[in-house]
């Protein structure tokens, strides 16, 4: 069974240090998720693919305690096995604030401003029987190597 990303061009994979992929315009502005073109000062231009920083700080967060309506939600859980998760914006220095699932579901254990790092986590089994993986941010704990 191969682990495949939930979507192409979302993060570098496979990779030892996976990173999110953004588009960069000639004016330096960043677009996430990556798309090939953008209007810049009224002109359509091709965007350069760049990797975003892997670490940042938690800007805000919330929790999802019930299973979202499916579709569109595509987790392979059901109403009984659903596990609450949290979502947040992680501020990547000099880049963007990225919305993502957080690996810590308990709001009491999350604090605005805490350090977070990108991780690639299993998501579901797709229709081909492959395990899909997605990006998330995990709190940086003492002893985690950068």
């Amino acid at each position: 069974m191969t682990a495949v990303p939930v979507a192409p061009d979302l993060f570098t994979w496979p990779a030892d240090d996976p990173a999110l992929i953004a588009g960069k315009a000639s004016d330096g502005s960043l677009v996430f998720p990556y798309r090939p073109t953008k209007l810049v000062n009224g002109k359509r231009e091709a965007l350069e693919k760049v990797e975003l920083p892997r670490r940042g700080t938690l800007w805000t967060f919330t929790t999802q305690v019930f299973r979202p309506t499916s579709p569109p939600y595509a987790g392979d859980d059901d109403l009984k096995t659903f596990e609450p998760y949290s979502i947040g914006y992680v501020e990547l220095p000099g880049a963007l604030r990225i919305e993502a699932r957080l690996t810590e579901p308990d709001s009491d254990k999350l604090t605005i401003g805490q350090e977070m790092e990108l991780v690639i986590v299993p998501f579901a089994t797709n229709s081909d029987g492959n395990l899909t993986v997605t990006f998330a941010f995990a709190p940086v704990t003492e002893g985690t190597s950068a």
Partner: protein
Amino acid sequence: MSKPDIAIIGVGLHPFGRHGNKSALEMGEDAAIEALSDAGIGWDDVDNLWASSMEVKNPEAITGFLGLSGIPARSTFTGCASGGNTLQQAANSIRLGEADIALAVGLDKHPRGAFSDHPSVSGLPDWYGDLGLFLTTHFFGMKINRYMHDFGISHETLAKVASKAFTNGSRTPHAWRNKPISPEEVLASPLLNYPLRQYMYCGPDEGAAAAVVCRAEDAHKYTDTPIYLRAHQLFSRQEDAFELLSPSLQLETAPSPTVFASKAAYEQAGISPEDVDVIQLQDTDAGSEVIHMAENGFCADGEQEKLVAEGATELGGRLPINTDGGLLANGEPVGASGLRQIYEIANQLRGRCGDRQLENAKVGYAQLYGAPGTAAVTILSR
């Protein structure tokens, strides 16, 4: 204050809530007939129709119930800001000379539970829905969480805002939620999207609302108590704003479209926030009401903590907000919700609100906000 050119001469409402098999169009019919009879006119006097709905593709098909008179009948939908926009289109059509009398009606009937759709309808990739990120409720939780962090707003304040809505709902015969709920009960309700709890959220429901407009100079032909349309503005989001359903945000945050709509509306009306006597704010959740108090100029960021504690936003307070219980007590039939705000303000300005009537209210303010980052502000006066 600027000289008004458009007046509201009648308003109508089909109560919001759950209404079995009754269709959205039939609820719209009831609201329209009430508004027409409030204006003392018949359907034959109406020159054009503006209708908004999220669930009904062609809400202007309400003509099938009211009479197939052949008039221009159009649908207009701008998400949660639809009610303000529909009224604005009706007013503009009078200015353009298409109509002497225009009818604006909003109607909806939503399935139970949070709104859901395919991410592509919002221009978002499939994975955003797959992963469980395509929920508008996440935005409300995350925006108020950051706001509480930045400006010292407490969980108790959110609970008091919700409790106030249900208290006002208990004085509003047509409200959906009309049982008072204490702040303690609000705080004890299940957490849905931290820091927002079940009783801090409005629910999608069913209902309709309508308003009849004409030129201000003609208003006294129809009513002794016309309500003048002093301002109406609609703004969409600007680059870098912190908005619903955003996979990424820029590091510098631009103001919400509400801020721009509000400033433009005060300017158009020639008034300032201190001149407003009765306020309707989009309270999709208790946090939204808190944030919207500042975004609409009624206080500085963070001042809500003190204002809510001292009861300033309650009936009889200095800033009475959502006197009919707002979205929290009435729910949100999206296409109709904005015209419910107009219905309440018009009735407050005309002294028709019974147990929740404010003393001598002369100027009313209504704000709407929702996906995809659209805000509408309407200012009315006696």
